[in-house]
């Protein structure tokens, strides 16, 4: 049983047995799932948590006096506590459940943004933002007459901070919205340092952590950010759950976003008073079952240890980079330094469209992503329309990288051969 021994950071052979989908064949081949930056697969622990919830405790939460309602409420709020501990938030009150990262960011852009940003103010983003952390700010700027300041990237797709963040800041800067780890070229940004600098200039900081919280230890108090957003579905959890972390004072001050059931304290014909935080931001029946199952995903990752997850991804990314570099005439994007490169590799074959690459490897069972990855501003700055992207997670192996590299050989044969 040498294969179930822990070698490297994670006991991957054992982990793989927890993921039912890995037994699936794709075109007769074992599935090699390298599209983890889009969404991750789910371990049976998460699937079972869902089933268990629906089979035993399903009820609407809050304000129920009956037992199922009490249980469901306790489970739902219990996960809020788990999430809070997972990112070291000072209190579960600082955790708002949304649908996904996109909604978390929109919530801030609407509720905080409309109340705090006005004409002439400045909003700083980067050219490597996912559309979900770009378009909401662009829209806010357009609606309010604020100015959108965009930090560019250097040759190696790290942020162009040669003149310091301060060169992008002014007295009018209200917020700096920045990704922790980019989803296409993999750059990990120094958000802690950037947050400190932004705060010195009096600006708030929102961190898009969709690609960091699933893959490395993240501590909101250490980063000292004001807002942080991520999605359960990218970290072994179900689809339909996003998280917004925000400092308590900010949540307390912010007007609500969506209004309706659950988020009110008192409604009269003439006016409404809001519930306390975080309920004020969770209108209507939440995605209770998926939040409960998200708790199982957090347990799973906590058991593995986020530092180990990061180590594993580093190992596999380094290995994949090494093998990819051996391929002829391939262009690989993203920083060379693995310490600032997440478990995501983007590349192109000159003269081959990424969708053709995707189709060819798919027929060998390898699922990768092709296209702009919701990173059009970055793609445009690289003067390309898209990339082929492989992204890794806890269940991926070096052997899978080998299968992937073999499959890529077929691309070369067909297009250049």
């Amino acid at each position: 049983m040498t294969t179930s021994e822990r070698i490297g950071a994670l006991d991957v052979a054992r982990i793989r047995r927890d993921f039912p989908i890995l037994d699936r064949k794709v075109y007769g081949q074992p599935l090699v799932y390298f599209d983890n930056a889009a969404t991750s697969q789910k371990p049976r622990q998460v699937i079972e948590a869902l089933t268990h919830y629906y089979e035993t405790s399903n009820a609407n939460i809050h304000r129920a006096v009956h037992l199922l309602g009490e249980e469901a409420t306790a489970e739902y709020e219990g996960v809020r506590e788990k999430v809070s501990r997972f990112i070291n938030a000072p209190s579960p009150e600082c955790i708002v459940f949304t649908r996904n990262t996109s909604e978390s960011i929109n919530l801030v852009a609407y509720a905080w943004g409309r109340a705090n940003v006005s004409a002439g103010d400045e909003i700083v983003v980067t050219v490597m933002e996912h559309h979900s952390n770009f378009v909401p700010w662009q829209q806010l700027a357009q609606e309010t007459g604020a100015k959108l300041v965009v930090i560019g990237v250097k040759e190696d797709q790290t942020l162009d901070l040669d003149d310091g963040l301060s060169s992008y800041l002014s007295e009018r800067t209200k917020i700096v919205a920045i990704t922790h780890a980019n989803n296409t070229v993999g750059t990990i940004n120094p958000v802690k340092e950037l947050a400190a600098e932004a705060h010195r200039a009096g600006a708030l900081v929102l961190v898009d952590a969709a690609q960091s919280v699933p893959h490395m230890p993240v501590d909101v108090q250490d980063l000292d950010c004001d807002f942080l957003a991520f999605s359960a579905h990218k970290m072994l959890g179900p689809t339909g759950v996003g998280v917004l972390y925000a400092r308590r004072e900010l949540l307390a001050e912010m007007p609500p976003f969506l209004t309706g059931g659950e988020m009110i304290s008192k409604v009269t014909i003439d006016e409404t008073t809001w519930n306390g935080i975080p309920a004020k931001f969770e209108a209507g029946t939440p995605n209770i079952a998926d939040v409960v199952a998200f708790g199982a995903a957090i347990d799973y990752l906590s058991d593995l240890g986020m530092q180990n997850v990061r180590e594993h991804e580093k190992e596999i990314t380094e290995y994949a980079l090494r093998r990819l570099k051996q391929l002829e005439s391939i262009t690989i994007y993203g920083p060379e330094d693995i310490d600032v490169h997440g478990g995501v590799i983007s590349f192109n074959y000159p003269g081959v469209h990424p969708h053709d690459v995707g189709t060819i490897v798919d027929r060998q069972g390898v699922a990768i992503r092709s296209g702009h990855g919701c990173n059009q501003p970055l793609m445009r700055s690289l003067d390309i329309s898209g990339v082929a992207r492989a992204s890794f997670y806890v269940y991926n192996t070096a052997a899978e990288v080998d299968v992937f590299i073999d499959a890529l050989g077929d691309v070369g044969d067909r297009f250049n051969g």
Partner: protein
Amino acid sequence: MCLSTRLVTWAIVSTDDRRRMSSDKAEYKRQETELDELYQEIILDHYRNPRHKGRLSAPTASEEGYNPLCGDEIILDVEVTDGVVSDIAQRGSGCSISQSSASMMTEVIVGEPIADVKGLIASFTAMMRGSDDDLEELGDLEAMAGVRKFPVRVKCATLAWHTLSQALEKAKSS
């Protein structure tokens, strides 16, 4: 680090090998054949050497087509003289399928009466939807039939043709 990586590689290769064993060889062959039929020489040739690439100086109509799958775009300029597509040019960017489809399309329709072009659009679209009725009429374009085994890529093949159809509508009303 290097050593530990090697160890991981090694250990996992051995677990995964067992799964690999169960890989379906016949299916693998079948997929290679489907890929061969997708990436035929004629398609790759049009992809590498696109015909009628560029723009017309005085087109009767221009139209932009957009593929929501990938965000790729194609732009067609058509010149219509006396009910005949007297000239055409195409530009934009996309995958081998969309580019070669556009290139092959320009070749076959130039000089054709609009009515015939419309027939061709219908035949091509029908073929991509699975019909084998008009294969003969389509000539070289039949090479595109291989795309049908790749449902998500069908939009790539039809992009130029949808765009042409709209360009002709525009030309009519201008």
